[in-house]
């Protein structure tokens, strides 16, 4: 990141934290949020409970504030309030949202409509669903100008600014004809079209691969600088925020628990939660063991007395239970945290990363060998001459950008896709292409965990039934023993047996993914194929899942085929890595070798594009 560290404290929390250094030469902040409180609309059944409370921050023109938090922390709720919106069932309980000194919360719906787009713009998480699929991109962009005025002649300029150099073909396309990165650029162009004062970006790069993400981030930064737009960038990914933000605000359980200049906050986090988050982020620099945080954030209305983070905090003292901690300023640039031991936490060296290298097991006889595999859909080749070997107890990562064919590879191995040529050898025997040709034993020994835990569990079955289904098919165990096995599987993935009668919708994303793992593990497989299993999860949850996976691999001698687009994660989990680009193996070898001394230009670019704290400061 290029932010000068002697920056003025543009994002110092308003009110309760005294600005120790007067912001010289800076007028009113572009955005000032003061004591924002958003509550669940009280009804007969439930009393008023705050979802977000005591949130205050400011953003200066041209600056980016990163708003970080796990799902459910209230970050999106805050973001929507900046546009004068609340989710169904919530209402604004107090506070102010000042844009250029004008409070937008008391405005009428009609007045707000005039502001949205012109004064405040919003870039959604999934541009694919935010763009109207039946209108051409050009038509939709013209619409923005038609509503908010402004010359349509600026169209190509706006497009160029968003990084779409040749706008003609894009304007004439429908959204589905564009790639994810292009869609997101169109959304950016739309947002910046009317030169807003403030732009709110809600995880706009989630779902994009690193290279595209890097370009989108650069575009956002550039546009904010050029037009002096203030930006609030919401993300659960600390590394991405480190990449783009000048200032960072961390949310936990509806409170802003830490705020400060990005460089300072990431080098010396003052809140134990921020520290924990940082330890959960995999790093390109070292294959440190990822540490997940125990427990889960409290739900609104269910907050413990005192500090909401106390039950999960390793620094908790008796005082934490007494009252909610007030912000403690830890530096003269306005870096502050809601923690009674903030100063102490800051003084701890770095983030105390336990850089324990994973012991690489000796590569034995490979369990799985893929040779000369090629796949085509109709005429289009998806994979060409792929060679790959996974040794016993070894963990091999397959890395590639979206569309590189890595998921197809996984589907071929597990037998979902059967139109491929070449050979796959498993346990010394050649593997038939489709599920039907394979023996019961082969089916049992190769298990698969899918990317999205929200769609991989049948919502109509209990957890016990979900895990029991494979068991019932492969083993004809009596009920008692089957229940025992289900219980064991749940315990193995660090859930309790009491989860068995529950339904998936009662579980969090991380818990669901554990159940999906339990379903795969209950059959004692030899090879586990994991397709982006952490990409739908928060970093702290991801860390916990990776921790669990590595432990299970150790205990059970599993071989892992780990498919991901997350390079730093590879570092933490894999022994060998194979980089795939456009259906071809581009580079493969031991992780340390490929990631530290990449041979091909493609891998080098991929590594350079990874966001991280390292570039900061």
């Amino acid at each position, binding site marked *: 990141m290029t932010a000068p560290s002697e920056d003025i404290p543009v994002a110092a929390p308003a009110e309760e934290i005294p600005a120790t250094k007067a912001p010289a030469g800076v007028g009113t902040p572009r955005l000032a949020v003061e004591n924002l409180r958003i509550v669940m609309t009280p009804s007969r059944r439930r009393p008023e409970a705050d979802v977000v409370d005591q949130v205050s921050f400011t953003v200066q023109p041209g600056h980016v504030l990163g708003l970080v938090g796990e799902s459910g922390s209230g970050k999106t709720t805050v973001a929507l309030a900046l546009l004068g919106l609340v*989710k169904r069932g919530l209402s604004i309980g107090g506070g102010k949202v000042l844009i250029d000194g004008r409070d937008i919360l008391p405005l009428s719906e009609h007045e707000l409509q005039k502001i949205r787009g012109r004064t405040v713009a919003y870039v959604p998480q999934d541009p694919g669903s935010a763009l109207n699929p039946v209108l051409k991109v050009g038509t939709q962009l013209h619409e923005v100008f038609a509503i908010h005025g402004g010359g349509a002649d600026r169209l190509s300029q706006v497009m160029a600014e968003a990084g779409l150099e040749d706008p003609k073909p894009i304007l004439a396309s429908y959204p589905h004809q564009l790639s994810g990165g292009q869609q997101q650029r169109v959304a950016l162009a739309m947002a910046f079209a009317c030169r807003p004062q403030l732009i709110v970006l809600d995880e706009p790069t989630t779902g994009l691969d690193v290279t595209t993400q890097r370009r989108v981030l650069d575009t956002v930064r550039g546009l904010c600088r050029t037009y002096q737009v203030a930006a609030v960038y919401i993300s659960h990914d600390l590394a991405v925020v480190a990449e783009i933000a000048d200032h960072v605000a961390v949310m936990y359980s509806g409170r802003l628990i830490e705020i400060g200049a990005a460089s300072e906050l990431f080098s010396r986090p003052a809140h134990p939660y921020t520290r924990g988050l940082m330890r959960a982020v995999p790093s390109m620099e070292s294959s440190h063991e990822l540490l997940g945080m125990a427990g889960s954030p409290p739900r609104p209305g269910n907050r413990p007395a005192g500090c909401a983070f106390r039950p999960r905090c390793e620094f908790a003292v008796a005082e934490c239970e007494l009252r909610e901690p007030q912000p403690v300023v830890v530096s003269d640039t306005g870096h502050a945290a809601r923690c009674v031991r903030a100063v102490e936490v800051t003084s701890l060296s770095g983030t105390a990363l336990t850089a324990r290298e994973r012991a690489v097991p000796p590569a034995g006889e490979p369990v799985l060998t893929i040779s000369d595999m090629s796949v085509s859909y109709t005429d289009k080749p998806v994979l060409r001459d792929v060679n790959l070997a996974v040794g016993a107890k070894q963990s091999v990562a397959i890395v590639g950008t979206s569309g590189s064919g890595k998921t197809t590879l996984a589907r071929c191995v597990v037998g979902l896709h059967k139109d491929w040529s070449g050979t796959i050898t498993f346990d010394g025997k050649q593997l038939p292409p489709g599920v039907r040709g394979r023996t019961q034993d082969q089916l049992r020994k190769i298990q698969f965990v899918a990317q999205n835990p929200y769609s991989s569990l049948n919502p109509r079955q209990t957890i016990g039934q979900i895990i029991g289904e494979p068991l019932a098919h492969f083993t004809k165990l009596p009920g008692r023993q089957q229940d025992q096995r289900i219980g064991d599987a749940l315990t193995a993935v660090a859930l309790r047996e009491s989860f068995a009668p529950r339904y998936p919708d009662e579980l969090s994303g991380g818990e669901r993914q554990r159940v999906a793992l339990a379903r795969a593990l209950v059959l004692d497989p030899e090879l586990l194929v994991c397709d982006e299993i952490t990409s739908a999860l928060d970093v702290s949850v991801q860390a916990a899942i990776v921790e669990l996976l590595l432990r299970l691999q150790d205990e059970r001698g599993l071989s892992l085929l780990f498919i991901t687009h997350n390079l730093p994660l590879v570092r933490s989990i894999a022994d060998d890595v194979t980089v795939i680009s456009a259906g071809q193996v581009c580079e493969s070898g031991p992780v340390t070798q490929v990631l530290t001394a990449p041979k091909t230009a493609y891998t080098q670019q991929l590594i350079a594009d990874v966001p991280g704290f390292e570039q900061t400061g």
Partner: protein
Amino acid sequence: MARRPEAVVILGRAVRTPRGATGLVIAGCVILVAAIGPAVAPYSSTEFVTSPFARASRVAWLGGDVLGRDVLTRTLDGGWELLVMAAVATALGVFVGAVLGVMAAYYGGWWDSVIMRAVDVILAFPQLVFALLLVSILGPKIWLIVLAVAISHAPQVARVARAAALDISERDFVKAMQILGIPGRRIIRKDVLPNLTSVLMVEIGLRLTYSMLVIAGLSFLGFGLQPPAASWGLMINENRVGLIANPWGVLMPAILIALFTIGVNTFTDAVARASLGVGGRVTEPEPVALVAREVT
């Protein structure tokens, strides 16, 4: 912590809405009339009580029909068979249609083409014409009418079920079962069908009203229960010549058929609305529904 079946949850929610309660009460009244009618009817349905098309009197509260039989008795007598036939035809039609639709969606390819083209052929005939065709060839037998109506429903249900099942079949939890080598039949029964509950419930409601109308229509055209048996559809036909003299002979069965249809439709609408929230469990949690903000 066992959860009540989804169907029960949806029905429970639907009944608690004003719309659902109204629909259920209306349809329930008609069913009640048809069910206990035969037991409380003052005369026998074939007994000549008064003169043809006699006006309402103390002897015959709703007057006489074309042959001077009691309209009230025949109204009370003539619904049960109709309702049972409609219910059986609906159950059969929805079952067959759902199975065909889900098979087409799940297996795809050859299965899909054959099933859906067959469906298209049957859909080319209007429902009533199709039923008439079968009945006019094989004669007006009750089982045949039920079967004809069921067959005429199946293609429409199959289309709806196929569309819904296509989506479910692509879900990862179905894939997870497939890679274990679990046979398709079992996956359909355990994983696909349970996720179609709400869709099929709405379909049952809709098809029930159509069944009622088609069977009553057939009976009006003379292809239902044969005289002298009482049946609402038949009554309308028999008594229409005397509409001026004693309108009750036509009005009573017509009103009951209309009320039943309206009641079932209203209730189905409530079920469809109630199932929205429940069915939402299939997808990701917490869809961001933006509404105008409420400032307290």
